[in-house]
């Protein structure tokens, strides 16, 4: 499983340019599904047929946050904007990598004070170019954090666990699930970080009976962290509410029942900020009963996100247990 997660987190795939990660995922699920297609926005949709049960959409987003080059100056330095929720304090002294393999260092014009985080307009990227003409990066190119995965005991550290860890859970699910009652539409969505865009169109196209998003959530278990009753290693979280949605009570209950009947540890999640593809899926057409399984994750949207492998494995078990039931809502 770690190798699967390594491949997924280390692959380039920012929001709006998911070609490469889509190819990797396509290769991973090929042969395990009955149909495989890509829609107009670039969502990868895999169908594994069931035995006449419900239509279930399982979504994990394959895009990651990054930065977009908006200007190359005369001397070959790059100015950039945040693509999704990237914050300046995670960038200083950091490296980004472009699709063509070029690596850039983030610099700051001048540090006004070590206590103050500079704003984006004071930052630039240095790829070592000597002029605009010889710069190997152009306006519109997207860089992502450049970090390898590290496994330390049960704890994993990498960029882009948000939401490649969700992708890993769904790939693993396809490997392990045997016969299933339900039609499973496994969707690796695009552009979640830009406003759940891939989920909007893929959910419309599929028109599922039930939707489940698999994504990461924050934890409250680090020193002086803002209060939150979710901790690393205590099991996947079943979402009750986030900033944009309240999970369908019936789906939430069914997930809890699946966990309790199968002795799978789980936590309940009430997230103050942020949301997932589920918020978009829920509002599709006439409304879709939708829930979320969250992988607890520290330091989300930084180059060093941290998850616990046991939570990941238990998320797979939880999904398997949930989908083995005929009734998907209570």
């Amino acid at each position: 499983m770690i190798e699967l997660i390594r491949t997924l987190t280390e692959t380039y795939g920012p929001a709006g340019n998911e070609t490469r990660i889509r190819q990797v995922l396509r290769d991973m699920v090929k042969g395990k599904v009955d149909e495989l297609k890509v829609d107009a926005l670039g969502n990868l949709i895999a169908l594994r047929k069931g035995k006449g049960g419900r239509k279930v959409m399982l979504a994990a987003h394959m895009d990651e946050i990054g930065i977009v080059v908006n200007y190359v100056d005369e001397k070959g330095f790059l100015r950039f904007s945040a693509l999704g929720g990237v914050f300046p304090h995670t960038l200083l002294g950091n490296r980004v990598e472009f699709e063509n393999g070029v690596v850039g260092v983030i610099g700051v014009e001048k540090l006004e004070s070590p206590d103050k985080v500079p704003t984006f307009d004071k930052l630039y990227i240095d790829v070592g170019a000597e002029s605009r003409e010889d710069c190997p990066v152009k306006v519109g190119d997207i860089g992502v954090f450049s970090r390898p995965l590290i496994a330390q005991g049960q704890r994993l550290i990498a960029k882009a666990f948000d939401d490649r860890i969700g992708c890993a859970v769904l790939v693993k699910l396809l490997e392990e699930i045997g016969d299933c009652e339900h039609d499973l539409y496994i969707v690796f969505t695009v552009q979640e970080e830009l406003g759940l865009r891939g989920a909007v169109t893929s959910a419309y196209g599929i028109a599922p009976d039930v939707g489940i998003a698999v994504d990461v959530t924050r934890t409250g278990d680090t020193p002086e962290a803002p209060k939150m009753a979710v901790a690393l290693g205590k099991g996947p979280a079943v979402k009750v509410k986030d900033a944009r949605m309240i999970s369908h009570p019936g789906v939430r209950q069914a997930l809890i029942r699946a966990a309790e009947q199968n002795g799978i540890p789980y936590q309940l999640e009430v997230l103050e900020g942020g949301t997932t593809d589920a918020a978009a899926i829920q509002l599709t057409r006439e409304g879709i009963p939708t829930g979320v399984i969250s992988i607890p994750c520290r330091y989300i949207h930084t180059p060093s996100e941290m998850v616990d492998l046991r939570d990941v494995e238990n998320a797979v078990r939880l999904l398997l247990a949930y989908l083995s039931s005929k009734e998907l809502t209570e």
Partner: protein
Amino acid sequence: MNTFEVLKKLSEAPGVAGNESGVSQIVAEEFKKYVDELRTDALGNVIGLKKGTGPSSRRIMLAAHMDEIGLMVSEIEKGFIRFTTVGGIDDRILLGQEVIVHGLKPLPGIIASKPPHLLSPEERKKVTPKDQLFVDVGLPEEEVKALVRVGDFISFAAKCVRLQGDMASGKAFDDRASVAALVCCLEHLSQMKHRWDVYAVATSQEEMGLRGAVVSAYGIAPDLAIAIDVGFGDSLGLSDAETIKVGKGPAIAIGPNFHPALRETLVKIAQELEIPYQTEAIPGPSGTDAWAIQVSREGVPTALLSIPLRYMHTPVETLSLKDIERTGLLLAHFISRLEKFPPE
């Protein structure tokens, strides 16, 4: 119908956005008296259909949201309950408020904080932020743990009371006053003829971002829609330029969110029947279900009636019962006259 009695039942029922089952039962009971069909959709919208006489089966959707703002359990600490907010809660009103925690069974509680005696003079002048507040249900830690879980909803416990004249006060008048107006409209319609099919919808999750309206409008695919919500009534600290007057009838909104011919028809009928009405100019997003419904599918001509309301988003929202009745009456007459739209 006794407007106050219906409003009281609706107001006192719990129904925080995302968990409307308490109030939706009351709505269903009231709608049932007048409609031909009744259903609840995947997001919890209660949809009543009162069939028209035809000949064509054109549909008008009336939308008033039944969800209310409230709280949710975020963590349990030594038997005290920490919470997050659902919808736009004014931190100033929280301290000392009575609530009901919807655990395994409903538990009465109060919102508490450090007593004033232990506060510094500066702290006394500051609003206590919600992360320093907690709900105390008065039970030992083990019992709280057994009865309450993270994610349980918490609603305000406020009585609905009559004030002087035709004024009333209570919680969740935003927007159950409009649900009461819907019931009032349905009652009038049961004595009137109407050609169009009427879909009376008590929407869910408006306070979470118009979520119930989005899906119910899609499901109904109406030819016309009128949302009913509350508007800022004249009250302390607000200028005439930014308010409508309580007791002077519903406001008929004007702005990009509203279909001009639909609005004008409503105005004409109000004038003809001498139903007092006001004008409310809304230059952009109305923040009401009308905003979502107007752009459902291929677009829906939409209007908005606002019932003037004081102290919005507090447990002591205050309004005039007559304004509710006038709103119901105007809606009923509009519907009974409805033939072609747009009128030629």
